[in-house]
């Protein structure tokens, strides 16, 4: 199956199963019935069952047979050997709430730039002006937040 030399080129040199849509009658399977698609998933199902059985057996066996001697220090969270003296969930300043909200609002709006940038050449001047209007609205919102003191930390 070499691409070089005098053999067929392009898709014709691929094995039959790798060709895209070799026959219009069977769009999903090569030379088979369309309903046979489900049958191809039987090995996957068997594989999933074997994996689940193996995991279940291993976890159960180690739970039953493994020597378990739990005590407080052993069950404590692993912090590289340091004994934790404060709980992991702490109270945060409410000021982070506003910062996070503003970030998410402006961050999500920036997502709209990507499809626009991809299609910029097709949209021509209309797209550019439309995006400038969009950015202008964002800037007005930003100025409003600034004026209201939303960007001040204290």
């Amino acid at each position, binding site marked *: 199956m070499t691409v070089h030399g005098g053999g067929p080129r392009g898709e014709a040199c691929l094995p039959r199963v790798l060709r895209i849509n070799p026959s219009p009658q069977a769009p999903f399977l090569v030379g088979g019935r369309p309903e046979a698609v489900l049958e191809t998933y039987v090995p996957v199902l068997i594989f999933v069952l074997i994996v689940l059985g193996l995991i279940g057996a291993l976890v159960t066996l180690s739970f039953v047979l493994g020597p*378990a001697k739990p005590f407080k220090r052993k069950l404590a969270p*692993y912090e590289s050997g340091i004994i934790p003296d404060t709980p992991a969930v702490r109270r945060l300043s409410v000021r982070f709430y506003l910062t996070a909200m503003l970030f998410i609002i402006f961050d999500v709006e920036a997502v709209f730039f990507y499809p626009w940038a991809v299609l910029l050449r097709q949209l021509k001047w209309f797209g550019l002006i439309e995006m400038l209007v969009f950015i202008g609205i964002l800037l007005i919102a930003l100025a409003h937040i600034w004026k209201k003191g939303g960007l001040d930390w204290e």
Partner: protein
Amino acid sequence: MGVEALAESLGQNILTTTLGKLIGWGRGNSVWPAQFGLACCAIEMIATATAGVDIARFGSEAFRASPRQSDLMIVSGRVSQKMAPILRTVYDQMPEPKWVISMGACASTGGVFNNYALLQGVDKIVPVDVYIPGCPPRPEDLLNALMILQERIKAQGITPRQ
């Protein structure tokens, strides 16, 4: 529960000794060390895992970053007084059965550092199975210690440890 308690209640017979041999074989050939490098000996421990000496030949290449998944603690280097409770916590958090190799002169005795800052031998805080002399020991010495430990684990089987 646990297979050791089971074996103890059944006593020594053909079933438990055969099972002990099987479990000892399995445990001995899959000793996973904890990632616990302390000092210069840790460099030799890392070198033991490289292709040149290749600790994977003995089934111990999986240095685990969590003590929950480790069987073996290689104390590779000097242990300061401040590190001692941390080392003991890591040892405590390893599941049974677990073993300790004291690697090098510092871990075993304090080495040349006979002062107030260092623990004079790690066996003051954790039970040590194998001591390795040397400053630092070569990777081959660590492999030798691992082989000694493997023989012990296989001989131990499922008889409860003292």
